[in-house]
């Protein structure tokens, strides 16, 4: 990044994928070719996307650092900035401040079995680490993914499920209720988690999804014998500066933008503050 951390780099939208009714994926490249080639980040780090005139919002870079043809962001239409992002076309210029935040401690996960539990758009931060692990498959043991959404239409990244399976991932998909033509599981994510019951032995669990899902996934993981340091999640807060200055996204003395967004469950317990 340049010496002004508030100044975004210009980037161009190369491709747009419609994931669901309200989620779009943007593939962008930095306009400065040299910067794009040198751009390095950790899985789980985030970027601030700028639509000049509307503002900035924080999204995880959900492509992995092992695949750097573009940087990928998946955006759910929710507020002002995300509405505007959904109106972008390929070729449009946007601003990007990245990488920001801590990212996943993937080095420490080496040699472990892995469990991903994702719900809806919550699969995005998991995807970057999942693809990183597929690209370094021999470093990890069993990798099980439980991914659910309300309906088949609400699942993201459907077009690459086969690639995940081919990459040695035990992918378990679920939707909340029966749908015509749906051949995978039916049931809420926490229920499916207790059915599948992946052993807690030598395993790291990484979960992301709606707060209510995370709450019950945590119960489920505790029942399966997972200890707090074995459970990793990503937090979200309203953010502005993204660099630990503006004071907004604190939980206790930690800033989600700078010290997070990735935290282990024991870190979350010890930091206090409001979530």
């Amino acid at each position: 990044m340049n010496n002004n951390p508030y100044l975004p780099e210009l980037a161009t939208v190369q491709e747009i994928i419609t994931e669901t009714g309200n989620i779009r994926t943007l593939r962008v490249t930095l306009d400065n070719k040299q910067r794009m080639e040198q751009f390095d980040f950790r899985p789980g780090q985030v970027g601030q996307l700028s639509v000049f005139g509307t503002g900035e919002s924080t999204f995880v870079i959900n492509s992995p650092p092992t695949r750097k043809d573009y940087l990928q962001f998946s955006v759910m239409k929710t507020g002002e900035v995300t509405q505007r992002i959904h109106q972008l076309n390929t070729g449009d210029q946007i601003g990007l401040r990245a990488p920001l935040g801590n990212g996943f401690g993937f080095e420490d996960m080496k040699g472990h079995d892995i469990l991903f539990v994702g719900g809806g758009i919550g699969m995005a931060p998991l995807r970057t680490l999942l693809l990183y692990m597929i690209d370094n498959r021999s470093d990890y043991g069993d990798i099980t993914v439980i991914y659910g959404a309300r309906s088949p239409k609400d699942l993201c990244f459907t077009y690459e499920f086969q690639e995940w399976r081919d990459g040695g991932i035990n992918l378990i998909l679920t939707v909340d209720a029966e749908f015509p033509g749906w051949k995978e599981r039916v049931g809420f994510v926490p229920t499916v988690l207790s059915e599948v019951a992946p052993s807690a032995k030598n395993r790291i669990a990484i979960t992301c999804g709606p707060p209510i899902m995370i709450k019950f996934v945590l119960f489920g993981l505790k029942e399966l014998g997972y200890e707090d340091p074995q459970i990793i999640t990503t937090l979200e807060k309203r953010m502005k500066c993204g660099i630990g200055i503006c004071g907004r996204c604190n939980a206790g003395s930690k800033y989600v933008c700078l010290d997070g967004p990735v935290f282990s469950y024991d870190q979350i317990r010890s930091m206090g503050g409001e979530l």
Partner: protein
Amino acid sequence: MAVKIFIATDRLDSVLEKLSTKIDLLIPASLKDDKSAPTGFVPFVPGTAPAFDRQTTTPLKKALLPQVETLLRFEYHKDPQGSPKSSVTVDDQRQVRPTLVFGARPCDVKALTTLDRVFSNGPYVDPYYVERRKNTLFATLVCRQNDAKCFCTSVGGGPADMEGSHLRIVPVDGGYVVEALSPEAQTLLENLADAPDSARDAQAGQIVEEALKRRVGELDTKGSPEAFRKRFDQTDYWFQMINQCLGCGVCTYVCPTCYCFTITDEVENLKGERLRSWDSCMFYHYTLEASGHNPRPTKLERYRNRVGHKFSYIPERYEGLLGCCGCGRCIRSCPVSIDIRQVVGHLKENTSE
């Protein structure tokens, strides 16, 4: 050899005028054409009556962190071929003019140690703040007007604390003795006025000595980070402390160490600016997320966070530094008499239990 001058009260305006030819001046003065109006720091123009006799209503922070400032400018360019493709140019050019704050108070200057840690010491450095900071000098009054709301010595400052100041102003009979505390300040004092006579010099010395000994406030903040954590979940307690709060946010507005800000875009047609503005953690919208979730939905969580930020989170994060300079403005300005010293005092009782 320290450079000292004496400015007689009736010569103050002309001396400041002379000084303002060397450097931009900010002085404490009434914010309206009315002597009883709130005071704050304003650019000096000849004829402005400095309000040296009392602490300003609004703090000094805007000298370094303006209430609103431009972070960058952008401009969209339409594609000449008429396709919907849009390109944009962005620039963050800025200029900073060397400035002297003449008549700051030790509490206000002390507050900058908190801002410095947040804005200058990383991991990310805020260039807007840092450039202004480097170009701003402080001529600080030895404070003789502390009142029942002040508690500067309780939080590491004091009425004669000159840490971070470049000039010391001592109010004496008939005027002010001004002493340079740094080489760049010496240059500023050259050819401004004569040295003080020995009587006034001696009087200034006595005043400084007295002020160095004076204790202002009896608050004990030791152990406040841990005590705050212990008290965090006692919602009945926090509700009792904040029940009367109107949520007006004036405590954050007048606070020299409150720095939280928001970033917004303003645009007209194809051109616009990205602005940084003061924000307040006492407002509901401060933490409201697009999903509708709000981690601090009521004044209880918001006040608890404000106290926590100053006496627990900042010290935990920044090597024991406090987020409070003891100026007492939040106490003086609160329309419903909430006194932060009460909560901080309770924290102490809490630890000794």
